[in-house]
């Protein structure tokens, strides 16, 4: 779906502009510092301003009423409110003007509270001057505002859940219960995930498959759920409400519609191969199911091992379920929302020679231990040593193998402490005093309901907990017993303990293939490799791409109840989309001017390459097209476009340049022009205000949605007009950007620009790129202080002189651009 610039008719022929300016006292919050009367008088002098009014509280009902009344009475067609931060009340006032029949996007705010009265209380005169500039900038932008319509896209009321582990199962069941059609895509032969591999669950020691099995059956039977198992995700295109998903079903060589799951084929099959579902401890047949409770209960032939004796065909007989000619099948689905629940993998520490995994026979991982102690496992629930098939009389559990290790996986894997406690309790309860159990740990993390009590239970059973990091494990050649060399932190000395078996609690790591899923779905991954949520606190289930949600351990290691909650939560989030016929999208998006787009004549495609969301499609010899519903409105493409052919609605070049010129009209040498990204730096500056951190009133801020929007021309124009300093502030690298990577694009752009400006004679300190988070109010205040001091140190004359030297070059550069 693409869109031409909306409502161009009113834009090109604005008619008579009638701007109303409403100045808020905010009690004494603003009026206590700033001279409101002076502001009112000043506002009246601004071009196209026909009505100015001050209120005690503009945001209160009477204040809003005054706006509505004035719009009607004075036929206002633009409204500027000078009050608090737009992050606070922009939405409120948009609704107000909308109530009065004005397009909500014909409203602009001047932030004279957080950006002036609150941060410059001891310099009221300068604060007033700054407020004047802020109002002037807002009016300048308001003159160029154009009405925008909220975009609506249709919604397909179906969902795709990727991954059939416990998180995916719950997400699918909840959505299906709400009445939505759900496709549950599973890569392996059966749903169930890691939970189906486990023996018991902590801290209640419920049998894992006994509680998950019924859920799996529910999924298999639910009329609204279609399980697509043994299949791969190939591609996803489209946008919120309208995703097209390509899936490849791998051939099982067994027809789903004919297989009854009786297992007679398995009985006659002569071939066995290591069962990776059993962590390769045991074997399965070349035609088999990975475990008896598999859903769908559908047999699969592994052609890597099958010798094609066709005994299974004979055994299947009249059912005719076996089809050796089956081919991969590609299917296409249309869904409105996607839930990613692809889970995690367990780290196998082959690469860490200290633990001897893979080298010493009696060193196993916890998941292997899980399969050993499981009654349906390859040993029938007996814990046996691989070296001699005997029960060990001493077992050492080693925590944090790979986890909390700066050389491997620095994060905590969340559930290892608890599953080790479960294992030791199981072992102790099974073999009583016949087995000595040691646990080597760094910290025991038992911080949820019933966990600490469970830890207590393990201690009461006589498990030896030794606080200390294991330095290495060695094997005694004859007995194949192991010696654990460790440091006992409580004794403060090195110890050695001999054990007949060692169990390693290895890290939970991103699922193999997570990079592929990330690429297909345009997800971001953190430094740990897990998928990044849109916001760690307030949007823990959302991915950066609208309509795609995350659940369970794909986003970081999680235990079962946490994964279940996330699955249900993600289902609820997806339902907010699926329950609607239409989805509304804010119109602050990028729009390509097909006439200006270079791609028609030469091969360009820079915009498509730089778009963090893959929202721009560029066909050969065709102007670039923005897929409206995928565009998040960061404006990065706008700044990157070499032909200035793209505009961001509500943040057009003309609007931003108008703000910039208004800000630098008077005494530009004394001012710092700052571009602040909406989500981090602007919020950080707001925080400086609300925290009453005082800083010099020399800064003139321009809000952009993302630092990626900051065109190099803005910087050039600012210096051409003689700005004292220019600051571009962004979210922190590498992952804080709310538009995935807009800050990186800005960084690259500005790093190319800065040396050129220095070469032309600009003092390096006059052009700054900084990273300020929404929490760093103090950093913002300190930064402005520092810059103001530097500006003073440079001195007006020097700045002026530099500007004189720069101007002709900059003018030339900007003119050349205009011509094109």
């Amino acid at each position, binding site marked *: 779906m693409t869109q031409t610039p909306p409502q161009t008719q009113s834009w090109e022929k604005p008619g008579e502009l009638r701007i109303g300016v409403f100045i808020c006292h905010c009690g004494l919050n603003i009026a206590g510092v700033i001279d409101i009367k002076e502001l009112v008088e000043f506002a009246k002098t601004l071009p196209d301003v026909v009505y100015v009014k001050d209120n005690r509280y503009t945001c209160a009902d009477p204040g809003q009423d005054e706006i509505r009344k004035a719009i009607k009475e004075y036929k206002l067609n633009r409204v500027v409110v000078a009050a608090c931060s737009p992050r606070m009340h922009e939405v409120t006032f948009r609704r107000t003007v909308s109530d009065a029949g004005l397009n909500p996007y014909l409203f602009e705010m001047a932030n004279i509270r957080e950006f002036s009265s609150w941060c410059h209380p001891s310099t009221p005169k300068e604060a007033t001057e700054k407020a004047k500039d802020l109002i002037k900038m807002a009016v300048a932008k308001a003159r160029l505002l154009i009405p925008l319509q909220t975009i609506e896209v249709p919604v397909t009321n179906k969902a795709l859940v990727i991954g059939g582990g416990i998180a995916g199962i719950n997400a699918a069941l909840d959505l299906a219960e709400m009445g939505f059609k759900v496709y549950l895509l599973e890569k392996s032969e059966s749903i169930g995930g890691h939970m189906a591999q486990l023996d018991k669950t902590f801290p209640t020691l419920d049998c894992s498959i006994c509680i998950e099995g019924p859920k799996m059956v529910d999924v298999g039977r639910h009329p609204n759920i279609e399980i697509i198992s043994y299949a791969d995700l190939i591609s996803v295109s489209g946008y919120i409400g309208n995703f097209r998903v390509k899936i490849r079903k791998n051939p099982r060589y067994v027809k789903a519609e004919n297989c009854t799951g009786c297992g007679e084929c398995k009985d006659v099959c*002569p071939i066995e191969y290591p069962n990776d579902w059993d962590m390769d*401890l045991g*074997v399965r047949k070349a035609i088999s199911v990975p475990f008896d409770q598999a859903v769908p209960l559908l047999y699969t032939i592994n052609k890597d091992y099958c010798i094609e*004796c066709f005994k299974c065909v004979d055994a299947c007989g009249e059912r005719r379920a076996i089809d050796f000619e089956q081919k991969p099948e590609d299917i296409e689905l249309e869904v409105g929302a996607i839930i990613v629940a692809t889970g995690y993998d367990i780290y196998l520490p082959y690469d860490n020679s200290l633990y001897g995994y893979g080298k010493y026979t009696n*060193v196993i991982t916890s998941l292997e231990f899980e399969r050993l102690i499981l009654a349906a496992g*390859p040993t029938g629930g007996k814990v046996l040593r691989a070296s001699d*098939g005997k029960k060990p009389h001493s077992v050492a559990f080693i925590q944090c193998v790979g986890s909390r290790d700066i050389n491997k996986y620095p994060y905590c894997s969340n559930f290892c402490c608890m599953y080790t406690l479960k294992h030791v309790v199981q072992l102790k309860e099974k073999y009583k005093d016949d087995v000595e159990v040691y646990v080597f740990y760094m910290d025991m993390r038992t911080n949820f309901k019933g966990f600490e009590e469970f830890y207590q239970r393990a201690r009461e059973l006589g498990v030896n907990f030794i606080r200390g990091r294991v330095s290495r494990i060695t094997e005694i050649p004859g007995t194949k017993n192991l010696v654990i060399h460790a440091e006992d932190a409580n004794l403060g000395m090195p110890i050695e303990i001999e054990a007949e078996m060692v169990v390693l609690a290895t890290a939970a790591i991103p699922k193999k293939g997570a990079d592929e899923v990330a690429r297909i779905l345009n997800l971001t991954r953190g430094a740990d490799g897990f998928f990044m949520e849109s916001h760690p606190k307030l949007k823990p289930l959302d991915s950066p791409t609208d309509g795609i949600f995350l659940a369970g351990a794909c986003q970081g290691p999680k235990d079962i109840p946490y994964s279940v909650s996330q699955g249900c939560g993600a289902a609820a989030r997806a339902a907010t989309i699926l329950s609607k016929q239409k989805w509304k999208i804010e119109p602050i998006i990028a729009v390509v001017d097909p006439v200006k787009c270079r791609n028609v004549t030469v091969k360009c495609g820079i915009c498509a390459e730089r778009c963090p969301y893959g929202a721009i499609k560029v066909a050969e010899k065709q102007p670039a097209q923005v897929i409206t519903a995928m565009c998040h409105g960061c404006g990065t493409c706008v700044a990157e476009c070499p032909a200035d052919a793209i505009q961001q609605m509500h943040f057009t070049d003309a609007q931003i340049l108008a703000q910039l010129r208004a800000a630098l009209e008077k005494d530009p040498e004394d001012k710092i022009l700052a571009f602040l990204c909406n989500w981090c730096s602007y919020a950080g500056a707001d925080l400086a205000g609300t925290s009453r951190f005082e800083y010099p009133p020399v800064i003139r801020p321009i809000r952009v949605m993302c630092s990626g929007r900051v065109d190099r021309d803005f910087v050039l124009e600012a210096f051409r007009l003689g700005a004292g300093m220019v600051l571009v502030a962004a979210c922190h690298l590498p992952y804080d950007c709310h538009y995935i990577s807009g800050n990186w694009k800005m960084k690259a752009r500005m790093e190319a620009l800065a040396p050129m400006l220095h070469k032309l004679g600009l003092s390096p300190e006059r052009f700054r790129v900084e990273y300020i988070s929404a929490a760093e109010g103090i950093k913002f205040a300190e930064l402005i202080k520092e810059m103001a001091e530097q500006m003073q140190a440079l001195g007006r004359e020097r700045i002026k002189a530099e500007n004189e030297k720069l101007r002709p070059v900059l003018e030339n550069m900007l003119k050349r651009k205009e011509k094109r």
Partner: protein
Amino acid sequence: MPLKTLKKETAETLTLEWILHVKNYRLTLNKNFCVGCEICSLACPKEAIKLEKLPKSTNGKAQHAKVDINLEKCNFCGICDVMCPFGAIKVTVNNEHVLNVIEKESFPQLIRDVQINSANCAPECVDCEKACPLNLIKISYIKPDGRFVEDLKSLTTLEREWLRVDVNVDKEHCPCCRICEFKCPKGLIHVRKIFYGRMKINPEKCPEGCKDCLDVCPISGALYLSEADKKVHVNELFCVYCGACKAICPVNGALELKRTRIMHAPVRSGAWNKALERLTSPLETSKELKAKSSQKAVDVVERRLKWKEVVV
């Protein structure tokens, strides 16, 4: 314990292993028995076995091809074990010689039909023992009390008359070449070959002076150097159609080997049909399948008639 896969080679053996926590799969190729024939490589359903030509040894004689097994492809099904005419390959599970393909009737056992009427053996005749090219025959004498004779010469002539002759053939390693049958002076041995076929050496293509095939042929007497044309000729009477010669013949087409039938126990198996096709030819395979299906038709008719009889 995580899965361990191993491949070890010594002068005597080639060993492949899957070591699982609870199970151990092992394939052992005994190089003392291996003659470098092509049977296993053709029979393997996973194409895991490859033959490798070796350079001539220092005495100028050709060496038989070397069998190499790919650990990634091998699934320890044991078909090579079943098919090796020389019994050089053993597949074991937990150190027991278990062949699932045979037990589940997914693959037929080869029929090694060697019958010796040792009751009528001439006293102290060891012709067959001497004749066996692979030294698989052991003749021993049993006293009336059932004990084996340790030293024949220590016995008196009278005592010798009471002895029973026991001819023990190591069938496991016997390729059924029939040499013993022909060498038995009293015609007491009856051998049926495992493989039937045709073998021809094309004199035009066969390079002069080359006798590589003769060097590697495991059955002395199956190939011979003709005095007349100084070239190697085939005595099909003894040829076991193993293809050791074909595997190393330096000239393409000089040696024509076709297997036409393989003696095997009756089974219905796709794996067998494929192996048969690779070992013989599609034509021979279809012949066997036709024979089987007509036999099946006969069985069905017989069964129905029987049923009728009962009803009538």
